[in-house]
């Protein structure tokens, strides 16, 4: 038989390609960050020169004034955009699930922003936010207020970036919550209605508790992606004005490729990865603690 050799060996090689990619292009680069973080790297026409200088990179890390702004901005950005998206996404899912007709059409339209290139979204909203002719200032003008410098004013820039993220990712929250609302047990909802629950009671006492796991998953997924946000913000403000929209990813990109500090950039990357791994470990540990408590009862 032709496949005989493949058949006999399949269990041994089926993982190889995937292991090769993960080892060479994800594990190795992360390990590579360690020697990079201990060095100063100069790239010239003749080649790449490494100098051992751990203290310098550590001093840069501790003395990085922009880094503090970047951490604060990232936290504000993640919390604010995920919170708004969860609320809007939940109500969109609820209303669309309650529609007698047109649910499929609504869902098709809603997935549009998820699929668009973030760079295109950034450039679209850059036009929308334009001070002189953008749609937002046209609307503000209709109400009779003074035009707002959405992307150029330190008070508004981060909020504008959040608005774009809400447009981009509310549909994702909607999709996950919509899928689980559709599978809610009908008899429980029916029982609630027969017992005369008001709409608000239906939502807060029946639907929200049943959606608990889906809400947690949606929030978690969103927090992960929001934490990594880069593309749109790079297009919209590039971190400005000043440092008012400088997110961690943007700061890292600047250190790596605009200031050409590959060594310090690696130090910063390792710090970020360490924080992520620690967060994961704590999250996993507390989840298992909660589980154990529940089992003990």
């Amino acid at each position, binding site marked *: 038989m032709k496949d005989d050799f493949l*058949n006999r060996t*399949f269990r041994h090689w089926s993982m190889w390609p995937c292991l090769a990619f993960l080892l060479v292009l994800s594990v190795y*680069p992360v390990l590579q*960050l360690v020697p990079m973080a201990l060095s100063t790297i100069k*790239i010239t026409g003749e080649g790449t020169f490494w100098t051992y200088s751990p203290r310098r990179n550590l001093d840069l890390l501790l003395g990085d004034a922009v880094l503090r702004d970047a951490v604060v901005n990232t936290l504000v950005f993640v919390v604010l955009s995920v919170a708004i998206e969860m609320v809007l996404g939940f109500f969109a899912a609820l209303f669309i699930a309650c529609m007698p007709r047109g649910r499929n059409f609504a869902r098709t339209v809603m997935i549009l922003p998820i699929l668009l*290139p973030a*760079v295109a979204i950034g450039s679209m909203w850059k*036009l929308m936010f334009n001070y002189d002719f953008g749609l937002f200032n046209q609307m503000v003008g209709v109400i009779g207020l003074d035009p707002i410098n959405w992307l150029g004013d330190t008070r508004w820039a981060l909020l504008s970036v959040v608005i774009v993220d809400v447009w981009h990712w509310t549909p994702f929250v909607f999709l996950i919550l919509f*899928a689980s609302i559709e599978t809610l047990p009908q008899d429980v909802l029916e029982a609630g209605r027969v017992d005369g629950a008001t709409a608000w009671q239906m939502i807060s006492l029946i639907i929200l508790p049943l959606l608990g796991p889906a809400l947690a998953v949606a929030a978690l997924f969103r927090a992960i992606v929001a934490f990594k946000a*880069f593309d749109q913000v790079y297009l919209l403000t590039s971190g400005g004005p000043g440092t008012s929209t400088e997110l961690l990813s943007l700061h890292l990109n600047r250190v790596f490729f605009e200031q050409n500090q590959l060594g310090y950039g690696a130090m910063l990357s390792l710090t970020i990865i360490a924080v992520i791994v620690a967060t994961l470990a704590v999250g996993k540990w507390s989840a298992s603690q909660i589980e154990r408590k529940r089992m003990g009862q």
Partner: protein
Amino acid sequence: MIPLHGRAAWIGYGVVALAILFIVGPTAWIFLNSIKYQIAIYSGAWVFEPTLDNYIDVLFSRRSDLVHNLWNSFVVAGLSTVAVLVVGSLGAYGVHRWFRSRLFAKLLMGWVLIFHMIPVITLVGPWYLFFQSLGLYNTLLALVLTHITINLPMTMWIMLTYFNEVPTELREAATIDGCGDFTTFRRIILPLVGPGLVSSGILSFVFSWNEFAIALNLTARDTATVPVAIARFAQQFEIQHAQMAASSMIAIVPALLLMVFGQRFIVRGLTTGAVK
């Protein structure tokens, strides 16, 4: 869910219509701007004479390389999608079939999760040095390889879910009938997880087409992809609003087509794992 009736239904329709307007409005407004002359954009006009000049300019003028960028994006997204489907489904099948409860699989999937959570920029620095030392900097191959890697976690998760749904009896029946491991995978399992392959294929293509952070730093002028080209319109000394709008509209065409023809698979892929 309980469908609304009477007046409540009309209020519901109103809310849903607003939501759809919120989603479609910006895209439609940008489309309108992409068919305006520059002067009409700057005056914020709502009544204007439509023109295709902006599209002709970004596609065919000397200053722009968009046709070339589109080709690059297409090659990178296509190749990396095919490769990630092969690599990802083989790997997920290995985990599913032989390593399910072993420490090795736990470590592997744990690493995949961590890798997915790390901002990609943290790895672009080492990738830059790595590809430079191999002489692959500023090649489409480097972009293809990195895109395979970043799409691998999602593909493996989706395919694992689908493999777990295939009844074990089918595989056992095939083995009893004399099918070897690879033949079983090829002839029995793969056809059954077809929808999973379509879901992860569509999403991998879209994410590779949209990817910006890596392409920005690993490519130069002749290997730039569409997102990099759009960013260039937005970052030049004088922002080219008309060109930005037109090139953005061109860049979203694949997404629009896939949304219309593949929405069932996209929804399934995006919600896999989350619903259970």
